[in-house]
């Protein structure tokens, strides 16, 4: 591989864009300032997307080792290095981040009415942090980006939240801070026991003392469980979804995947034995989460909260799939992760369409939108069905595979997970009926115009990908499948090697 630091460029390009915006555009609510900031934001994020696509093109799926690896000295005194690299798993999260940022920027135009320049800056910083998480191969570097996400997150949720009390911002940030600081302690213990924080070394050779590995797993678990979020650590998420503009929630689709990614990279790959020991706990929490969040979604009267709980339920499938430790479960978890990022983003953008026009979040205040907004109704239908898991959409494959994997691990797991699919259909269709069908008896709702070109442009890439993933998943699967096979065969080798001893 040539020595061009592709991953570093991809990671820090949005940050450079943010600095440019800060320096060039005028702040406040100046019109040209907003235009310049959005312009720079689009150039930076589309360039990042382009480079990421180029990286995907160069990526060799058959090679299960880390690719595009960069190493540099960072803090030699403490043996901490700047290591970057991606494999078949992280390459998709990089792609998702790069793809969703321009979509988020597009939704700023209608969704963020004050201080759009600052929002663009925060969103670009957030993109850099997310890309950093998925491309870092040193635990400390990983941690720096993982927690660095909190800075733009706090500012966005606080400054552009609906209620202005800052409750959602405090709750989400302090909650995740608590989790990540526990993870930091776990990183210390790992570093001191293994003598390195280089993840490539830790993955190949997870020789931590068993009693210690359990505690380490617990600390990492809490952190990732809050981020994912797994029931009962999910309570911050509905507040954030409810409060913040769609532009941020679109990104949070990938943000939640930091937790799933952490479970695979650190849980399964670095602490295989402890992961096995804790698997029943994680699986039961995931199952409770799937059923609980689905029921909670049914009970919500505000459309944004329905989407929030549906996210919690889908994240349950991801952890369920991972910790079932079956080929199907892993494959399905990866697929749900891909699909959910797109579908959750699309659904949230979807409910933001009428919200941005009328400023109402109560589902009951809408109705009959299929009459005056047919294009919007059709789009939302596709994403609703994708969320439900209809065959032909991206949702089906992931949910089917994780349920199958869970069934193979224990038939009860499969049965309960399948209940969640039924409930998922229920709450999404109830939401759809409430929004789109029924009489057009509310004058403000009936007067709304259909989706415009900008909104179509936001939905278009998501629509194409959701259908592509659903109809021809092999195009995506072949990139991550070899790596995933390697991960699970390594895992089984570790577990069996241990029992044979």
């Amino acid at each position, binding site marked *: 591989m040539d020595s061009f630091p592709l991953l570093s460029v991809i990671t820090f390009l949005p940050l450079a864009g943010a600095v440019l915006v*800060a320096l060039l555009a005028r*702040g*406040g609510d100046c019109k040209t300032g907003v235009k310049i900031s959005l312009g720079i934001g689009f150039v930076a994020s589309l360039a990042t997307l382009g480079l990421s696509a180029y990286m995907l093109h160069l990526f060799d799926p058959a090679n299960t080792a880390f690719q595009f690896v960069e190493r540099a000295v*960072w*803090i*030699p*005194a*403490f043996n901490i290095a700047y290591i970057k690299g991606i494999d078949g798993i992280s390459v998709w999260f990089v792609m998702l981040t790069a793809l969703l940022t321009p979509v988020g920027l597009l939704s700023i135009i209608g969704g963020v009415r004050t*201080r759009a320049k*600052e929002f663009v800056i925060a969103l670009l910083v957030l993109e850099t942090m997310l890309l950093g998480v998925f491309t870092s191969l040193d635990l*400390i570097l990983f*941690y*720096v*980006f993982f*927690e*660095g996400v*909190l*800075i733009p997150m*706090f*500012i966005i949720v*606080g*400054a552009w*939240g609906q209620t*202005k009390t*800052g409750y959602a*911002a*405090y709750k989400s*940030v*302090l909650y995740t*801070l*608590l989790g990540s*600081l*526990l993870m*930091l*302690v776990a990183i*210390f*213990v790992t*570093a*001191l026991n293994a003598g390195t924080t280089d993840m490539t070394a830790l993955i190949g050779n997870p020789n931590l003392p068993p009693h210690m590995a359990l505690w380490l797993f617990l600390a990492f678990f809490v952190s990732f469980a809050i981020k994912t979020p797994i029931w009962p650590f999910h309570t911050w998420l509905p507040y954030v979804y409810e409060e913040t503009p769609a532009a941020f929630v679109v990104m949070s689709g990938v943000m939640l995947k930091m937790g799933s990614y952490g479970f695979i990279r650190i849980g399964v790959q670095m602490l295989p034995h402890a992961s096995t020991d804790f698997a029943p706990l994680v699986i039961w929490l995931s199952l409770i989460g799937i059923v609980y969040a689905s029921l909670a979604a049914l009970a919500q009267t505000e459309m944004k909260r329905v989407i929030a709980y549906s996210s919690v339920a889908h994240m349950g499938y991801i952890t369920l799939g991972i910790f079932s430790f079956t080929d199907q479960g892993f494959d399905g978890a990866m697929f749900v992760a891909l699909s959910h990022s797109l579908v959750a983003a699309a659904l949230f953008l979807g409910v933001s369409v009428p919200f941005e026009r009328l400023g109402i979040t109560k589902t009951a205040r809408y109705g009959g939108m299929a009459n005056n907004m047919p294009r919007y109704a059709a789009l939302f239908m596709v994403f609703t069905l994708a969320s439900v898991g209809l065959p032909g959409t991206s949702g089906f494959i992931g949910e089917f595979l994780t349920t199958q994997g869970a069934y193979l691990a224990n038939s009860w797991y499969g049965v309960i997970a399948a209940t969640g699919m039924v409930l998922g259909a229920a709450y999404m269709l109830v939401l759809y009926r409430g929004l789109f069908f029924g009489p057009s008896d509310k004058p403000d709702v009936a007067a709304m115009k259909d989706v415009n070109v900008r909104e179509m442009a936001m939905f278009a890439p998501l629509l194409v990908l959701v259908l592509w993933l659903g109809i021809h998943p092999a195009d995506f699967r072949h990139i991550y499948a070899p790596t995933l096979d390697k991960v699970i065969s390594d895992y089984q080798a570790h577990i069996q090697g241990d029992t044979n001893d």
Partner: protein
Amino acid sequence: MIDIQSLTIVMPEITLAVVAFVCLIAAAACGPRVTRHIGVLAIGAFALAGGVLFCPERLKHLLDGALPVFAFGTQFVDDSFGRFGKALILTAASLSVLLSWSYFEKTGDEKPEYPVLIMFATLGMMLMVSASDFISLYVGIELQSLALYVLAAFKRDDIRSSEAGLKYFTLGALSSGLLLYGISLIYGYTGTTDFVSVSIALRQHMLTNPGIVIGMVFVCAALSFKVSGVPFHMWAPDVYEGAPTPVAAFFASAPKIAALILFARFLLTPMHAMAGQWHQIIVFVALASMLWGAFAGLAQTNFKRLLAYSSIANIGFILVALSVGGREGLQSMLVYLAIYALNTLGAFAVLLCLRRDGKPVNDIADFAGLGKTNPGLALAMTVLMFSLAGVPPLAGFFAKYFVLLAAVDAGMLPVVVIGVLSSVVGAFYYLKIVKLIYVDEPQGAFDPLPDWGVRSVLALSALAMIGITLAPSPLLDATMKAARGFIG
């Protein structure tokens, strides 16, 4: 009979003392109109003393500075540990003078004694850092404290400032009493005041004598007072609140550095054999400071009081590093001190930038809407607050990181977990300020920013919080060398 060797060793202190005396005479002769000139001279003197401190000629004379060298018998020691501490103190003192650049002009308390007092306090701190005998320790502390008492009451017509000075003096005198009593006990049982001899005497006999333990406890209590560790912290919020803001900034930085380095010398040289006894005291003070600093800070509405509690919580972390001892502990302590001092000075600089109708603002609520009225200042403040909260990628995170890493290495996992949890609590009040800045509506415009003095300190501080992350090696190398110079 004065030997050249000793004079070479104390040359930086002599330089500073000479300039300070000249300035004092000039101040007495010329009055308020030379305040600015004396301020410039003070910064020049700090730079000159720093230059002399690291002058290659001087170091060559002192065995290349590799080993500790003693002056005037064993009164005064020069090693790389002390030199690093002095460099930090001189930097913090220079920045504090810059912070006061136009402050007293605006309040009408412009007096040329101000920079002179800072210089004498700094001289006292340099003596503290290099003390290797209980006598020079006491002289250094008193020289520093007397100058600081006056500085706290510097706005003498202001009732709060006078109150701060009086409070600081009363409690300071009490702690000096404790210190002297402890020293006399240690002297009584070991027959010497020299650090190294005390250490040898303790190692040879009397290890379990209760008298010497009581002496050690008294000295620890007095030094905890100086660093404002809980439960000897009560003076700090009142003094910070009452003292003029540039003075409070100075209090939060340089004297803390000096007292902590002195604390490290006291615990690791004369009391080295009693590590089993003092370790639990320091751990207790550290835990109490971290928790109290975090929880009590939640209730504050005055920004200076908040920073006082913030510094108490930070001192807790530094004491964790001190209780670890060893090279790793000391190194992480020095890293933390450097980052903390710069970070806190920056936070005070932000406060000094804000004036409304000519009056300085002090309430946290006054930060509301800063993001709208002054985006640049708001950004700097956000960086500083997230850094104090210990959120990466800012430098404050690495400060905490190295301390906690050293503590985990020393097997102090419960302390680390409590420290981590308390920093989540503390993060709330830093986040509260960020929230005020970006979420709440402004309460009217601020006056134009003050001159370049305050702004340059602010810019330096905010940039350092990012710069240290990008290039941590210079700081880590310097602290490593300093810690090696002391522990070997």
